[in-house]
Structures are given as structure tokens and as C-alpha cells.
């Protein structure tokens, strides 16, 4: 799936005419928005600047001062204390696993449901899966802890499976809506040419689903990467915890070494922010498409 294959949903709308009279740049709006963007930028600035301070400078609690001298001690300490690389590895594993599972399982399920809508089993399956959208994770969290424990899934793999299942309903909804809007002709001609259903799915339907797969994948990514509640409850071994949960575990041990805590926060935030900045156009259109088509 390539970024080019996805066009922002908005531009699918009716083509716009350029307004007759050229308007000038709206400076008041630009300025107001720039000021508002400080709400986003200030916390990020504080995180970066606190992270590069020495413990001695950080402890005064002045969030806005620049680091003087610049120190990477906070990073060194946080890196060894929270074992950042392990946490990052686990978070990447969980996120990749959830994205992968959700895209494939939801695509399989949606395709089967849409193509067999006249069969009772598949029709009911659709409503069965969708009904889960009404069960929030907190409701099943406690029984789920004992269940995953007994099945030896009290580890990142258990989180991958569970998170995928909680993301399934929304993803199936997106895929089925999208599938219903794809005409059948291509598939039918492929089948006339002798392709099996599986080949048709793999060679024709799944590629056609690509834009929606991207959307489903982005939502799964955001959920799995950011989630705190599920890994914190399901993963029993603290050394196998994800990045967000590590911040919680070590919060009390950071004590008043603000440079260490902020260095740790920064290392937990940075990967996703950097990834986002490089793919922002694609992420924005993906999210928009999901919400609009869903």
C-alpha cells in the first residue's frame, strides 16, 4: 500500500471552483491560530527543555527556563532505569502485532460477511461482532486478567490478541461499508477466469481495500501505541511492559529528579511524533476517511 493511492476524502467531494475574486491571506486568523498552537507547543517545549537540564537545575521547578548547562544525564539515567529500549521494543511489537492482526482479521471477516450476507450465520456474525462496540474494556478487565493469566497470555502477546479483538468491531464496520461500495464485476470476471475465492480475495479484493486498510491500520496504531490501561492490567511481568506503562511504574521512583522523568516522557513520546511528522498528510487523510466513511 502506497501513500499515493490514498486521496484525502475531502477532495473526493465535488470539485471546487476557485473563488472569483482572489482573497488575501487572512492574517488575523493566522495569528490567532499561531497563538492557539502554543497550547500544543508549550508542553512539548517544557518536556524537551526539562529533559536536557541537570537534576540540580530541574529541581527548582521552573518549567520555562532553558537548560543551562545542557545535560544528557536525565536521558542516561532514564534509559537505564526504565530500560527504555526494551519498553520501546515491546511497544513496537504490540503496535505492529495489533495493526497486522486487525487489518487481516477484519478484512477476512468483512469480506466473508459481505459476500455471504444472505446466509444467516454471516449476517448474525456481523451483528455479534458489532455489539461488542458497546462493551468497554473496563467492564471485562477484571475477568480478562484471570482468563489471560490462566491461558499464559499475561504478556505482550495477550495484549496483541485482546487489543485486536477490541478494535475489531470498528474495523469491521469500516471495511464492510467500504466493501459494499465496491462493484462486484471485477471479482466476478476473475472467478470466470478460474480464480478461486481465496485468489480473488488476495489478488483483487485486498488490494482494492488498501485505502481502508490504511485507515483501519492508523486507528489500530493510535489505539495500541497510546493505550495504558490494557497493558498495565494484562501484562504480569513488569520487565515486559510497554512504554506508557513504564512511565507509570517509575513515576514514584523518578521522585523529584524532573530531568530524569521528563527525559523518560520525551523518549516515550518521540517515536510516534517523529513518525507522524513524516507521514502527516497520509495520517490525516486516513483518519478523516475513517470517520467520514464509517
Amino acid at each position, binding site marked *: 500500500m502506497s501513500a499515493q493511492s490514498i486521496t484525502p476524502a475531502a477532495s473526493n467531494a465535488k470539485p471546487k471552483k476557485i473563488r472569483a475574486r482572489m482573497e488575501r491571506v487572512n492574517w488575523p486568523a493566522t495569528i490567532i491560530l499561531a497563538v492557539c498552537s502554543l497550547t500544543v507547543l508549550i508542553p512539548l517545549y517544557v518536556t524537551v527543555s526539562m529533559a536536557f537540564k541537570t537534576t540540580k537545575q530541574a*529541581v527548582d521547578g521552573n518549567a520555562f527556563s532553558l537548560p543551562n548547562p545542557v545535560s544528557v544525564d536525565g536521558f542516561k539515567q532514564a534509559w537505564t532505569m526504565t530500560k527504555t529500549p*526494551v519498553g520501546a*521494543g*515491546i511497544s*513496537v*511489537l504490540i503496535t*505492529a*502485532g495489533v495493526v*497486522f492482526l486487525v487489518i487481516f482479521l477484519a478484512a477476512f471477516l468483512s469480506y466473508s460477511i459481505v459476500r455471504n450476507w444472505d446466509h444467516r450465520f454471516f449476517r448474525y456474525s456481523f451483528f455479534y461482532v458489532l455489539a461488542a462496540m458497546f462493551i468497554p474494556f473496563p467492564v471485562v478487565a*477484571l475477568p480478562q*486478567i*484471570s482468563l*489471560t*493469566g*490462566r491461558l499464559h497470555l*499475561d*504478556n*505482550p*502477546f495477550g495484549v496483541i490478541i485482546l487489543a485486536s479483538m477490541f478494535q475489531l468491531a470498528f474495523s469491521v464496520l469500516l471495511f464492510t461499508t467500504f466493501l459494499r461500495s465496491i462493484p462486484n464485476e471485477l471479482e466476478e470476471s476473475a472467478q470466470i477466469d478460474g480464480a478461486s475465492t481465496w485468489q480473488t480475495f488476495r489478488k483483487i479484493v485486498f488490494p482494492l481495500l488498501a485505502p481502508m486498510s490504511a485507515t483501519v491500520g492508523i486507528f489500530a496504531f493510535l489505539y495500541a501505541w497510546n493505550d495504558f490501561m490494557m497493558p*498495565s*492490567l494484562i501484562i*504480569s*511481568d*513488569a*520487565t*515486559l*511492559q510497554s512504554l506508557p506503562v513504564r512511565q507509570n*511504574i517509575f513515576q*514514584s*521512583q523518578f*521522585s*523529584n529528579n524532573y530531568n530524569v522523568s521528563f527525559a523518560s516522557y520525551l523518549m516515550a513520546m518521540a517515536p510516534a511524533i517523529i513518525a507522524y511528522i513524516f507521514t502527516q498528510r497520509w495520517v490525516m487523510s486516513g483518519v478523516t476517511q475513517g470517520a467520514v466513511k464509517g
Partner: protein
Amino acid sequence: MAALAAVAMIGAGLAGCSSGGRTKLVFAFNKREAVPFMQQVVDDYNKSQDKVNVVMDTSGLNSTAAGFVRGAPADLLLANFNNQAARYVNQCAVTDLSDTDAAKRVRPDVKALVDGVGKCPGRTSAVPYSIMAAGVIYNKDIFAKYNLQVPKTYDQLLSVSKTLKSNGVAPFFGTFYDGWTVSQGWFDYAAGGSLDLKSFFQSIEKDGANVGPNSSVSYEKDFLEPMNKMMTLAKDYTNPDANSKIYGDGNTAMANGKAAMYLQGPWAFSEISKTNPKANLGTFPLPMTDNPKDLKTAVNVDLGAMIPEQSKHQAEARDFMNYLFQPKIINAYNASQLGFGPLKDSAPETDPRVAGLRPYYEKGKIYAGPSYVIPQAIPIPQLAQSIVLGADPKDVLSTIDADWARFARRQ
């Protein structure tokens, strides 16, 4: 796709179990002040033999509790023996340790203290490792500077506080942002210093579901006066920013002599000395009455050893437990944490910082703080915190009564 497979493999490697044929023994230890000490002990043990690899889990009470629920708790718990641990003991979810060498060495009075918190009939479910006596931590230099004596009555305490305040010194350092510091310090000392808690809890446990405005004992009736006295101190004689300060702030402040008194247990000393090892500190029990004979110190079984029924490594866990209870190690631990040893052969605690509480502990003038006794389903830390933040004590106490009765009804 290849990248994904690679990531999955790394993950599988990480998730993969024990190291090279040694049995992995999970040891839950939640006392964060003592983690470095205990890590050293664990490392030494791991070096001393080649059958068992002890892995210390310091991720906190939540994961200990979750371990029980998922049927795979840690193999050995060395945890605060409070109302939470008591629930696992009362449900007989931990094994009988009466035949261990350590259990036979426990002092009888300490055993009574343990049994008072929780008991499974016919079993020695927990072996105490460290007893903490808690009271007021005070800065001896500040007291000397203003020529102050350690107060023995509530009035003396007030006059000490007034003197300090008029000299621009914060009498008490409050860390009200952390609810537990309010419940274990302010709330517990105020109640324990005023009441005979042992008989109070006997009566209120008997009343159970009937506790309320009309019962013979209730929190609303018995705790109100102590709470009002507590509020006099908390409102007028603490640092002005007490509401937004946390435990760590309090330790830093005491290390730097920013306040004269601090309602914390001895566990705070190790944190304080990280900032200033020379801080000249002492302890005394918080006086809440006009009679010096009423002075008592709060104690709790800060650490007790338990081995869950569900552990699959019973023998290994016992072996490591015996290692921990060697006089050399348990004495060193208690000396480092300023705890009192619970064993007959324990070395006496000689640190001058807790000398102010030792006589009370030795004479048995002790009480278990209500926040360690009241079931955790009643959120005492939050409720106590709401009192110091300005809620009407009477309302909060009647809430505790109602919670108490409601809890009794669903047992």
C-alpha cells in the same frame, strides 16, 4: 513484512522464559526505599547457588494483587502486611509457614500483632520481617535554636507550633497531594494518639452492618474530636503550599530544614538522607491528649513474608525465604531501614533517629494505625485527604460509617 517478523522474533525472545536452565523465582518486593538494598541481597543469592534465579518484581501492589487474580502470583511476597494482604490471608490463599525456621523465631507479641491484621485458622500465613514504629520526625537543630522541648501533651504541641510559626518556621511540613501520607500520618496518629483503637475496632467490628448515627461506637462519634484537633494543626501550622506537595517534596524539605516537624514513618529517613545525610533528626509520638501517659507509637508490620498457594516453586521460595531471614541479612535490613526486628534474636535498633519511639515500642504502648486496619474497599487515603483539603470532618466520618456498614452487608 520481514521487519514485522523480525520484531515478532525479538519479542518472542524477550517473552521467552528462564535463563539457562535455572528456575525462575519471582520475588515481589514493593518497598521502594529499600529496592537497592534488596537488589543486592537478590544478586548475592543468585551468585551463591546455580539452581534458582530470583527475579525481583518491584512493580507495586497492583501487580501483586493481579497476580493472585490471574492464578500466577509471585512465588514469594515480602510485602506490607496490611488490610490488603490480610484479605489473601483470610481467604487462605497463602501457605502455612509454621514449620519454617523463621516462623519459630518470631517474638510472641509481634505474632499477636500479625494475627490481629489477618489470619487463616490453623496456619502461620505470614512471617514478619520488619516492624516500623512511626511518629513525628522533628529537626533537632530547629528545636534547639528556639529552645523547644519535645512536647508531651497536645497543649505543649500547640505552643511549640505557635513559637515556630511566630518565628517564621513552618511547624509541620504537609504533603497533602499524596493521600497516603495524610492517612498514614495525620489521620492515623490523630486517632491512635487519642483513642483506645483496639477496643474501638472490637466494638465496631461486632456492630458491622449496624454502624451508623445510632450505634454505640462510630467513626462519626469517636473520631470527630481527634479530627478537629488534627485540623487545627493541619490548617494553621503547615507550609502554605502543603496541598500541592508530594512525599518527595516533603523529604527534600525536611532534608533542607524547611520545616520543624513531619508526620512520616522511618522509611522517610533513607530518602531524606539522600539529599542531606547530615540532617539532625529525631522522633517522638504525636501527643493528642493532655496526659503524657497516653503517649503511644503507631506500628505496622512493614514487611511480612508470604508464599502463595498458587506458587509452583514452593521449595525454592522457602529456601530463598530462609536466606532472607538469616540474622546477618534481616538485621542489616532493619538497620538500614530503621525498622525494628521482629525475631527473638533480632539485633536491637540503635539508630538515634528512632530512639524517641523505641521506649514506647518496648513497653508495648503501641497501636496499629486505622488506615492499615480498615478494609481497603473504603478509600481512607482519599477520605482523609479530603478532610485536610477542607471537607467537613463530620460528613467524611459519617461517610466512613456508612461505607463500613455497607461493606459488612456484602461479606
